[in-house]
């Protein structure tokens, strides 16, 4: 077990800068999710953590051991870091048990130790009865469990997961993300989990690092990232926040055309400066024109552009007077039709003002 410290990490491929000045600490036993869209640098970071790529500058420390720097990279097999791949990478010419035992045999353990370790890893992922099957006889989810067991069997100091669920179908994905969290809770291995799916990150991680275009956007606990996004990008990437540009009307107030909305101000914008209002679609209340209570604060008139029935709710797209659009989730009993004039109430408690993009 060990903690991870990443210091000033950069990676360039030719003229393309895949990663810029990444600084990141992960405490021993924690699970960090590297979250971001493709091209954000999360996979590059993982490759460097695993030792398959050398950094262009910066250092990676595992505990008190410098494992990566531009001049010295401890090779993957000497790092004590296990990696689980998006495409499982389960060896097709070995049985499930052989796959898992491989890493143990490398360590020249005795026959009984290998058998024991294999059994324990199989049990940890609940695959005991499939030990003698070949991978071609397993489902995708089972193969991913094999990959996980194989990575865990060697008792790594650090476990890396590279989009481990993205090749699975939705139902399995839900199940497996709890499974990963459960295994992590049981074993307490320091884990880095790369994903582009915010719900996976929220469910599994202790800490989330949101990345974009090679730069770290925000690092924090899931609640922190979810509730207090550092910027517009994080806000829209996590929790599907509406982001509406407006003009600052002094601290805590943002003007949209003629209307002003008050909100928690984290923008630091001076009066007259540009800023962005963020609010999640589910927090907005919608009133048909004329039904809004009098004296409603933080209310903006809008026109419905689209209405979609989702079962649990109705997904409304509405256009403000400024031309900006907002998504609103309303109870299914409300039935605004495209073209209807409505009033949107943005409760101040759920509104935040962030610096303008």
């Amino acid at each position, binding site marked *: 077990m060990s903690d991870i410290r990443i210091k000033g990490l950069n990676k360039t491929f030719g003229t393309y800068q895949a990663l810029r000045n990444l600084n990141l600490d992960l405490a021993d036993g924690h699970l960090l999710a590297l979250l971001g869209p493709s091209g954000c640098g999360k996979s590059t970071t993982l490759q460097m953590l695993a030792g398959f790529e050398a950094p262009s500058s910066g250092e990676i420390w*595992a505990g008190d*051991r410098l494992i990566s720097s531009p001049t010295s990279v401890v090779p*993957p097999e000497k790092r004590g870091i296990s990696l689980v*791949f*998006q495409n499982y990478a389960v*060896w097709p*010419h070995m049985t499930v048990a052989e796959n898992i035992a491989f*890493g143990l045999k490398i360590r020249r353990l005795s026959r009984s130790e290998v058998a024991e370790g294999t059994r324990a890893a199989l049990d940890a992922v609940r695959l005991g009865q499939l030990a003698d099957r*070949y991978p*071609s006889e397993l489902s995708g989810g089972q193969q991913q469990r094999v990959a996980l067991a194989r990575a865990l069997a060697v008792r790594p100091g650090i476990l890396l997961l590279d989009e481990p669920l993205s090749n699975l179908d939705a139902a399995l994905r839900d199940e497996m993300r709890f499974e990963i969290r459960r295994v992590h809770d049981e074993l307490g291995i320091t884990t880095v989990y790369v994903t582009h799916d915010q719900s996976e990150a929220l469910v599994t991680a202790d800490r989330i690092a949101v990345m974009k275009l090679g730069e770290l956007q925000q690092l924090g606990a899931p609640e922190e990232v979810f509730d207090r996004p550092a910027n517009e990008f994080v806000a829209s990437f996590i929790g599907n926040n509406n982001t509406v540009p407006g003009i600052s009307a002094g601290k805590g107030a943002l003007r949209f055309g003629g209307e002003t909305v008050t909100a928690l101000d984290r923008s630091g914008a001076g009066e007259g400066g540009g800023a962005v209002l963020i609010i999640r679609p589910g927090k907005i209340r919608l009133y048909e024109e004329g039904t809004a209570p009098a004296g409603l604060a933080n209310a903006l008139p809008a026109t419905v552009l689209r209405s979609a029935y989702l079962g649990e709710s109705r997904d409304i797209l509405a256009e403000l007077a400024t031309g900006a659009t907002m998504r609103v989730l309303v109870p299914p009993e409300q039935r605004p039709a495209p073209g209807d004039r409505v009033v949107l109430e943005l409760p101040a408690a759920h509104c935040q003002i962030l610096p303008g993009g």
Partner: protein
Amino acid sequence: MTSQPRPALSGIIGHNLPRWLVLTLVTLALLLLVAHPLGWILWNSFHDDSTKELTLGNYQRMFTRPSLWIPIVNSLLLAFSVALFSTLIGVPLAWLVARTDMPGRGFIRAMTMTAFVTPSFIGALGWILLAAPRAGWLNVGWRNLTGAEGQLLDIYTMTGTIFVCAIYTVPYTFALVASAFDEMAVELEDAATTLGAGKWRTMLSITVPLASPAFLVGFILSFIQGMTLFGVPAFLLTPSGTRVVTTQLAEFYQLFPPEIFLAAAYCMPLLIVTAGLFWIRRRILGRRQFTTIGGKTRRTRRIALGARARWLGFAFAMIVPVTAVILPFAALLLVSLSKAWGMGPVSGNFTLDWYRWALLENGETQRAIVNSLLYAGIAASVCMLLGVVVAYISERRLFSGAAILGALATTPIIIPGIVLSVGFFSAYTRPPFGFYGSAVLVIAAFVATFLPIAYSQGTTTIKGISPDLERAARSVGAGEIRTFLSITAPLMRTGLVSGWLLVFIPIMRELSVAIFLVSPKTNVMTTLIYNYKDGGNYEAVAATSVVLLAGTLVIVLLARLLVGQGSRRTRKTPTTDSAA
């Protein structure tokens, strides 16, 4: 797992030691096998044969004497025609076998394989028996049938030579194109069909264009075959006094005094032309050259030809089996079973003596059989080992500049066998090597000649194995060498065995590389047969040829059987990388 910090520098060397060791060995092997002999050819070409002094005279003579540039023109004509015809036959043949419901597909595949196994100069011998202008059995038959004078066919012509070269080159084109058709994803065609394209339209606008890189590669390989074949033009063009580059090269060696340095210079046009072709291929195909046209399903849908077209197709597909296998081997078999072949197939002329002689009595034949199998086996194994390691290094980009190793391993493909053998002779007969007359020399030359095949087979195989499978092993603690041995190598098994066969077979039938390098003790079947022909002993030539073909086919079948049994388990699993 030790977790104490290590000093950085010793860490680098310590971790990478096996890697550097392998790289050094591989680089050394490539330099010795390819660069060294080529260097000698180049060096020799600038020296005068009689004075041994540095000169440009060889090149000057080459371009000023018509008797020297006419063979070059002849070679180009031969090569282009061979490439054209083998493409015209090979591509439709591949399509019929791979994508239609033509009857007898398995038979056609097997016979084309048999044609591939047959040394083309033995085919030429068979065709001399069949289509010599006056006595050729086909001509005699035609005359008897029609009462006509003159001849139907004359094998001793450029046309005859092109024909024989082409039918034995078709298997290359066929193999390349058929595998492109085999591996093409059915979805790509279905996409066109769902847009309303008919099956023929789909074939012309989707299937054929997708496979066209294979056509081009087949054309170029056939062209090179046409440029570099020696036995066929030696037997078929000498009677009319027509020379091509390879026979001219052999003549330089047989002149008195031999003009060996002039021969070295004479190789250069051949090298330039073939190198140019590869450059063109690269320009046209770019990085597409090895891309498998991938999709999830590998099952292809066959086009129903309709009753008449099926049999028409079958008739067309029988061209190669009939002309390259059935007819020439029937002729050779008949001669090999004659007491005196000049007497013709009459009763009392039948004997098995020549087989008894070849297999039981004649020590030279026995030794050559053993040598052929032994050398081809060893050379194919070494060749595959080297080819795969180089392919691995350059495919996984283990070093910057790994591509140079790949280029070096590909170079021999542009060198005609006869040229390479000359280079090997110069490079390894003198001290400190002194390998002349030893099996090492012959085997090394075989390895070098067929390294490009091994390398390209290795590359294809490795491309089919996701690097993640290896990374997974690294991440649970296996070093590079261990990973290669426990993960990569077993996964490559099927590819390795078929690659091994693709090297073994051409070695068994290779003549021109061996002809100057063998010694009495290291004679192989092909050189022996060539020498027997030289001595006019047709019955022995025929019997030994039949033995060579039978022997090679047995090995091929055994190897097939071996792969067939081992690979069932793992075949289903997708090992290809998903888009990442």
